[in-house]
């Protein structure tokens, strides 16, 4: 794998960080009995690659001291292929001076709008990887990813308030710099600055139960934490029990458990053009494809690798990736998203008599079984009699996953379907940073507890 990275950050009109990175190396994974052994080398020679392979096998063999039942691999056809993500404008070829000008400009504008701290950043990843397996696959891929983020923070006497655009983590995809241009950061810089300041004097979100309308950015986080991680098969099988945790889902319930309302349709689809979790093949050589995870509210699918899928009696899921040549591939979300329905944000607000509309994630926490969550958003709005009312600060909501998803009664339509990208999903040991996609739409949930505070 060869990976080139570039990132830049700015605050209040000044460029603060400009970083280039380069990583290249070979990682070898060997399965002996019940254990994977993994070793890597950054020296790109046949001799070193062979040595890494021997080291991987020796390491796997050492695991025999505490062995389990032998692992099998769900079958996938051996292929010779090449795949590339679409990229209209190579992000690494855009002049640094232009990128610096963009970040400096938007942070100056947001600062001038009243925020004490205005920040902006972009990240670029350019990855070429080659996969060779002992089963005969030879696959090369060239994946280019990029995106940008912007935020404004207003500082009050006792707290801070923040507004971000387009979301707390920005927006990222398997696309070129055209993605950043389409975000139109300059067109939103003044607004986020003004909104951050206005939040300081807004009333606090009340602690009560009411209907809750969530924008698509917050829905992306909701899907990521409470559906994506919960349906990872390595968690369900207990392989991540000590660190990342397990899942409230049991394999015996697959195909019958009601996860949510009949309006809930979740897929894992690594084929969505431009979404951050898209690729041609995963790091086990399984071709990208779509897997139904929740269909009409029933849990029907899991995120799997070839080993976990074989153990569960499922076909290979194609969801195994590593974040570099020196990390063992593991089950990662692809594009885990909610399929659009027939409503719209405007319509669901008009149909809400007493509720709160929240959007843009600010805090997130969920238990180690992915059941109990509490999420905070940057901004909330009262909804009274079908109309948006006062702005509310510090909006939070909490729930138990199947109860919460069971209360879903409005799902936004295709016109509002947006592919959010999360570039910083932490999982595994040593910790790996995954890039995941989350297609989502605005939704409404009934009778939710909101306004929890310390």
């Amino acid at each position, binding site marked *: 794998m060869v990976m080139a990275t570039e990132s830049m950050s700015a605050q209040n009109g000044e460029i603060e960080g400009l970083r280039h990175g380069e990583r290249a190396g070979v990682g070898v994974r060997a399965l002996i009995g019940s*254990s994977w052994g*993994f070793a890597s080398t950054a020296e790109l020679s046949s001799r070193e690659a062979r040595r890494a392979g021997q080291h991987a096998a020796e390491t796997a063999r050492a695991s025999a001291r505490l062995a389990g039942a032998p692992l099998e691999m769900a079958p996938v056809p051996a292929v010779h292929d090449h795949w590339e993500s679409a990229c209209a404008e190579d992000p690494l070829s855009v002049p640094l001076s232009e990128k610096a000008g963009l970040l400096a400009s938007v942070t100056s504008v947001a600062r001038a709008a009243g925020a*004490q701290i205005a920040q902006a*950043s972009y990240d670029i990843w350019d990855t070429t990887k080659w996969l060779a397996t002992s089963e005969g696959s030879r696959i090369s891929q060239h994946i280019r990813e990029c995106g940008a983020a912007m935020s404004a923070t207003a500082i009050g006497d006792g707290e801070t308030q923040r507004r971000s655009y387009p979301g707390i983590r920005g927006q990222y995809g398997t696309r070129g710099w055209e993605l950043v241009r389409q975000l139109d950061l300059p067109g939103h810089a003044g607004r986020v600055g003004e909104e951050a300041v206005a939040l300081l004097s807004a009333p606090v979100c009340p602690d009560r139960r009411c209907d809750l309308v969530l924008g698509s950015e917050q829905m992306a986080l909701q899907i990521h934490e409470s559906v994506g991680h919960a349906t990872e098969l390595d968690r369900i099988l207990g392989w991540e029990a000590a660190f990342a945790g397990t899942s409230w889902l049991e394999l015996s319930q697959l195909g019958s458990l009601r996860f949510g309302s009949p309006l809930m349709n979740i897929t894992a689809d690594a084929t969505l053009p431009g979404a951050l979790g898209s690729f041609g093949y995963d790091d086990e050589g399984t071709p990208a494809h779509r897997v139904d995870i929740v269909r009409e509210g029933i849990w029907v699918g899991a995120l799997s690798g070839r080993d976990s899928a074989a153990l569960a009696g499922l076909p290979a899921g194609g969801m195994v990736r590593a974040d570099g040549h020196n990390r*063992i591939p593991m089950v990662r979300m692809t594009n885990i998203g909610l399929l659009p329905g027939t409503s719209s944000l405007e319509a669901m607000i008009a149909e809400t008599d007493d509720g709160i509309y929240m959007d843009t994630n600010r805090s997130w926490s969920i238990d180690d079984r992915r059941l*109990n969550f509490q999420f905070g958003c940057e901004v909330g709005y009262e909804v009274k009699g079908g109309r948006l009312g006062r702005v509310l600060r510090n909006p939070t909501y909490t729930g138990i996953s199947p109860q919460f998803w069971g209360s879903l009664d409005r799902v936004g339509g295709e016109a509002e379907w947006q592919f959010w990208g999360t570039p910083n999903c932490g999982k595994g040991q040593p910790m790996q940073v995954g890039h995941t996609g989350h297609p989502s739409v605005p939704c409404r949930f009934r009778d939710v507890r909101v306004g929890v505070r*310390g």
Partner: protein
Amino acid sequence: MSASDPAALAEKVVEMVGRRAEAAVTVTHTRQGLTRFANSFIHQNVVDEHTEVYLQLSLDGRAATATTYRSDDQALEGLAGRALVAAALRPVDPAWAGLASPAALLSPSDLHYDPATAGVGPAERAEAVAAFVSDGDGLVGAGFCETTRNDRYFANSAGQRLDSHDTSAALDAILRVPGPDGGPSSDGVASTYSFRFADLDGEALGRHAAARARSGADPIELPPGRYEVVLEARCVAYLMDFFTFYGFNGRAVTEGRSFVALGERQLDRALSLSDDATDRRQLGPLFDAEGTPKRRAPLVDAGVVTGVTHDRRSAAKAGGGATTTGHCIPGGEALGAVATATVLEAAAGAVRPVSSMVSEVERGLLVSDFWYTRALDPKTLVATGLTRNGVFLIENGEVGRAVSNLRFTQSYVAALAPGQVLGVGDDARLAPGGLHFSLHCAPSLHLAAWNFTGNASA
């Protein structure tokens, strides 16, 4: 010259940059082995050995950084070339504070290095894991055993030269009693973090985790609310990442994003806090990413805030005579300077066993561990998270029934505010912080109140 010779590589890069720019180079050669187990067998066993070259340079105040995992001449030339081109194209950084001047380490370069640990391989790690599981009372185990060796060298064009060698070893694992009807299991956790592999006692950790898991079975549900608590050391270490990242970070203080007010008694007088990489209990390097030697940095003395952490850039922006405290983190331009080796201790040395603190609780909770804590507001340090790996009701000074996991929403500053700390434990040890950023040396604490806002499963 090889990839495992950090000094030669660093000198070479400084030479390559030459007089074209100010340059600072850190080369780290890392050898890490990690053995993970779940369902009581080893399922992942990984080894990673690599050399990272990290170059910071400045062309008349236009700064850029670049990293590479390659060590051949072509890659190093490319590294220097990319950084120079990038720096030339960006605007001047008005906060560029120049390079660190020559200064020696304040402790031996091998303070946290153990030769035996450097040689540990997968077989030894497997033995430690097997010991944990075999003394686990037949319960299902999961966790990891890790060993790491780092050889690090720093060179800059101002003449600063430093080297540091460190090792680390960790065994951190749970044992589980299955819950009834697929419900939550009862888990007990035990861990040791040290620079010596020999300090990992798998059998003792297995016995401790098993006892905790057994005693946590058949938990009762308690209504949410404010409870007096004894937080065990792992919980307290979890809090510390938030204090260092959001609170004592000099940049956050300068920008008004932090709760910190220098000179004020903001925490209970029972507590003192410092950052001290030269403490033998700590792990890691003895200089920061700018080449400033690590030293003890006082942060809180008997509840009074006495210091914050700075790198060269944040100190220059803070003004008022602020200087770097040696807390620059690689790539941390936007984050600021963060303490990575904190020691929380009793101000007057008045520490007590956990059992003594428990004996003074009329009705409260003993909490073993926290999970997935995130800040709702970085200034007040209001955070939400959950309990994990064992919660127990304390009544009339006795530990009683296990309690199901709870969610909390709590200001960490308020929890440790004056009058809130009723006892400091004698069990200070290294444990991970709640943002997975650093390990912290922290004791158990007896606190007057903790705000539980929900049940985890209902």
